[in-house]
């Protein structure tokens, strides 16, 4: 089993579009595939790669929230005073916790003088689903309820489900969320190869460098795809020289091509809908590169896996 993650830092640069086409093309090389959509806030990989039917669904419980048992509550108000989020209010001589504002820190439970008057309740935060795509390989996707954050816990569970479905020589491709937060860390950790997608804009380049700090932290070999490379050559050149300095492997550069937005409208991988378009030709080249990396993985890793970790340590401000 080999795990690949597609990430970008910045959103909307083409992660899912590129992932869908790589998946469909790798299938032609006879690869066993599993797709994981790790962007549960805005999941849409399943739309592009056409899920025939959902075969399994499990509930996902996020962080726990506090709830007051009004029969046990002695109305002392200690919980309302301590709540750092002002989530507890009083109505008709009853203390009530606003379930949307509550962060689940349980400070209220610590100060409550009555045993079990405040209970910890898991929140039904969404569902994780396993789908069968029209290409035959499975996809693990998730849908969050409004206001419930995507979490590392959710992504970790999606990856676990993927591993339960692994057959011989399976390639798992994880379509990460944007950003460099908890859920992205959980998408990257332990992954064999990371593919970073950037577009030639200063914002995308800035976010590329931020997420690259994470892959260097995890000592992961990192590939680069520049999407719409020809819309801004000066920044494309800057990204290329950054990639070269940092031993990133350039998988390919996709030209701006209207075939891509058209295929998104039709919810089809561009490679399938417009196989002769400029973008599809480059995507086929990219998939061929990925396939040959997988064929000669150890050689490739010896060249591109960072030898030394570069820890990305957040600055923690200590209390005085």
């Amino acid at each position: 089993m080999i795990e690949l993650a597609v990430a970008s830092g910045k959103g909307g640069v083409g992660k899912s579009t590129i992932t869908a086409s790589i998946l469909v093309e790798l299938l032609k090389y006879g690869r066993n595939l599993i797709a994981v959509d790790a962007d549960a806030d805005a999941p849409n990989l399943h739309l592009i790669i056409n899920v025939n039917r959902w075969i399994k669904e499990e509930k996902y419980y996020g962080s726990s929230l506090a709830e007051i048992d009004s029969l046990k509550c002695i109305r002392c108000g200690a919980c309302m005073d301590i709540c750092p989020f002002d989530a507890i209010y009083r109505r008709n001589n009853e203390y009530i916790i606003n379930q949307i504002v509550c962060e689940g820190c349980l400070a209220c439970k610590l100060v409550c003088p009555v045993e079990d008057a405040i209970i910890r309740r898991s929140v039904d935060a969404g569902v994780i689903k396993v789908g069968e795509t029209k290409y035959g390989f499975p996809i693990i996707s998730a849908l969050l309820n409004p206001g419930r954050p995507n979490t590392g816990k959710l992504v970790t569970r999606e990856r676990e489900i993927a591993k339960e479905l692994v057959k011989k020589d399976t390639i798992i491709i994880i379509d990460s969320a944007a950003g460099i937060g908890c859920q992205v860390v959980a998408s990257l950790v332990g992954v064999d190869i990371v593919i970073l997608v950037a577009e030639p804009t200063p914002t995308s380049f800035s976010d590329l460098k931020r997420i690259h700090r994470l892959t260097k932290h995890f000592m992961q070999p990192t590939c680069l795809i520049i999407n719409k490379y020809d819309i801004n050559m000066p920044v494309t050149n800057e990204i290329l020289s950054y990639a070269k300095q940092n031993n990133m492997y350039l998988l390919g550069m996709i030209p701006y091509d209207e075939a891509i937005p058209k295929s998104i409208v039709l919810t089809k991988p561009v490679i399938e809908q417009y196989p002769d378009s400029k973008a599809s030709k480059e995507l086929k080249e990219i998939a061929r590169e990925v396939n040959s990396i997988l064929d000669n993985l150890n050689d490739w890793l010896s060249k591109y896996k960072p030898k030394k970790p570069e820890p990305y340590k957040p600055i923690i401000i200590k209390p005085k």
Partner: protein
Amino acid sequence: MKIAFAVETGEDLNAIVSSRFGRAAKFIVVEIEDEKVVNIKAVENPGSKVASGAAIKAIQSLINEKVDIVVAGAFGPNALSALEGAHIKHVTISGKPIKEALKEVIEK
């Protein structure tokens, strides 16, 4: 000295070291004296159950167990900072049984 190994399944020295730290299912805490194993204990990792801040929860449980060194496949940015604060050393090894990883750690 106590060394904790992040694992997903297994309770003994044949358990495989996990590729992740904060969200690993449990830790096998191995106590050694004069390079010999004197005690083995499995500890559930509370980090595997929380939505966020997994590594911090995991490290609190290692502090409670008075662990000196922790072994896992990868440590995230928050994990590194907190381990430093807790004066727990970390060693990056994954995919090997604990008994092999233990040898490497002792040699280091």
